[in-house]
């Protein structure tokens, strides 16, 4: 069988092996913790009104989803190359006719599969809890207000449903995944020139924090609000070198019931693809020269 320069099958094999490797690291223990958090949050603050209770549940759940995805994206990706070097798996793989870029793509895809799978599971768990809580609150309100007329029931239902389960919330989860994809690609790029796992984790985390405040810096730079050339140069450099992760921060407004338009989904997909492809190219250029 002739050897091809690019093989999706090889990338897929590497990706599934990466998922197995990460699962062995008990990385999905977070899922259990998440479930406990969601159930606890759903019964916290019983004194708040129903709308607030559902919002509270969504805030906590989405917060946990974001923390899970970003932490796994940074830590799991940062661990991959050093772990493969330590286990000598890297030498075994690269001694075969596997191009280095395929190895990197396989690793990144593996992390994204793990994060995506985790988010789907957590989204399902959260949706079930939110739906149950919504029904429970609705029943409680109908009973406490002694509502019997169809128009009263419809009004109560609309009031509770406003903060209940909608398809829109799943698009919020998609935004979280896309942000995690960018962070994973970024962590992969950093790990290609990093000297240690800790260095990768710290640098990536710093870039992630800067990336969330990047809108401010970019606007200062583009609108010429800074006068000192040092400030301008610094803000320009940070704006150029860090990704704008705030583009994916639609979650808080999705929680409030804002509708995610198809245009917004396209923007997030496009932005995410731009970063992932760009960082993968840079990762490859760095990894090709890396002495193993």
């Amino acid at each position, binding site marked *: 069988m002739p050897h091809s320069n690019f093989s999706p099958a090889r990338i897929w094999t590497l990706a599934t092996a990466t998922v197995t490797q990460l699962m062995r690291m008990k990385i999905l223990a977070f899922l259990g913790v998440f479930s406990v958090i969601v159930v606890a949050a759903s019964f916290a603050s019983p004194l708040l009104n129903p709308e607030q209770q559902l919002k509270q549940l969504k805030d906590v759940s989405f*917060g946990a989803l974001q923390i899970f995805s970003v932490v796994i994206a940074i830590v799991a990706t940062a661990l991959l190359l050093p772990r493969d070097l330590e286990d000598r798996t890297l030498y075994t793989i690269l001694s075969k006719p596997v191009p280095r870029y395929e190895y990197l793509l396989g690793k990144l895809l593996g992390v994204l599969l793990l994060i995506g799978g985790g988010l789907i599971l957590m989204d399902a768990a959260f949706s079930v809890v939110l739906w149950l809580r919504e029904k429970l609150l609705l029943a409680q309100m109908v009973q406490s207000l002694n509502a019997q007329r169809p128009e009263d029931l419809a009004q109560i239902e609309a009031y509770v449903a406003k903060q209940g389960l909608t398809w829109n919330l799943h698009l919020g989860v998609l935004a979280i995944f896309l942000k995690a994809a960018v962070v994973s690609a970024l962590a992969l790029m950093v790990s290609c020139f990093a000297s240690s796992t800790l260095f990768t984790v710290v640098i990536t985390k710093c870039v992630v924090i800067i990336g969330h405040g990047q809108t401010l810096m970019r606007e200062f730079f583009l609108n010429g609000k800074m006068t000192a050339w040092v400030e301008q140069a610094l803000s320009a450099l940070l704006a*150029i070198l860090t990704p704008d992760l705030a583009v994916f921060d639609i979650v808080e407004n999705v929680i409030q019931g804002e509708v995610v338009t198809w245009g917004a989904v396209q923007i997030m997909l496009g932005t995410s693809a731009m970063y992932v492809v760009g960082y993968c190219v840079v990762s490859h*250029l760095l990894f*090709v020269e890396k002495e193993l």
Partner: protein
Amino acid sequence: MKRKLQALLVLLILGGLKLPVEQAATRYLREAKLLSPPLDMSVRDSIGQMGFAASLGGLRSLVASITYLQAYTAWTNVDWAKVDAYFTLTTSLQPRYERYWDEASWHMAYNAASNYRNNPKLNAAVREKLYADHIQRGVDILKKGLHLLPNSALLWKTLGETYERRSREPKLAADAYMEVYRITQRLHYARLAAYQYAITEDPSLWRKAYDLLKDSYDKNQRPPSLLSTIKELEEKLKIPLPSRIPDVTKP
């Protein structure tokens, strides 16, 4: 070394290309109300560095929920200064969530104001001063919220109620109810506005009240308070007899 320079070049080119793309994306998402305006840097001092980093890290909603719960705890401890401070934070973190503005105003204009007014440890002058100050604070919170959410029927309604029931300013209450009517087109709010216009000292506003109530009457919405108010206004405005509504027959 050559590859590293290439990598840096790719990174710089990507950075240069992405700036206008990001700017356009941010503008689009803000217009679609999917992105909030950037966080006010003054919030940083109030929520501490950890909270600020978390809110900057895409967790604004979660941090707002936490500060809201802290406000709730402060309320149970009857600590009005803390309630106000935490709600200020909460509304700064999530300015588009109208319920936070509504509740913050309610705590100040109703709970805090009444609590001070009924505090026997304070002398009468101080009690009344604090009462008035906290009602005004509630009004100010609503006005700030309305500056950001000018089409929030909930906030206009609460403002109308606050003017009507707390500071007893009927014209301002009526104007606020008229805004609710503008947004919802529900005649109920036009009537609420009319009842407030009717109790002012301004005859031009009585006329406005009469027109609003007559409109409701002509559309067959005739609750008892509407009928009695129209009757009063007919007297005040000296409406010609043929134009008056029939007398209300008492059962």
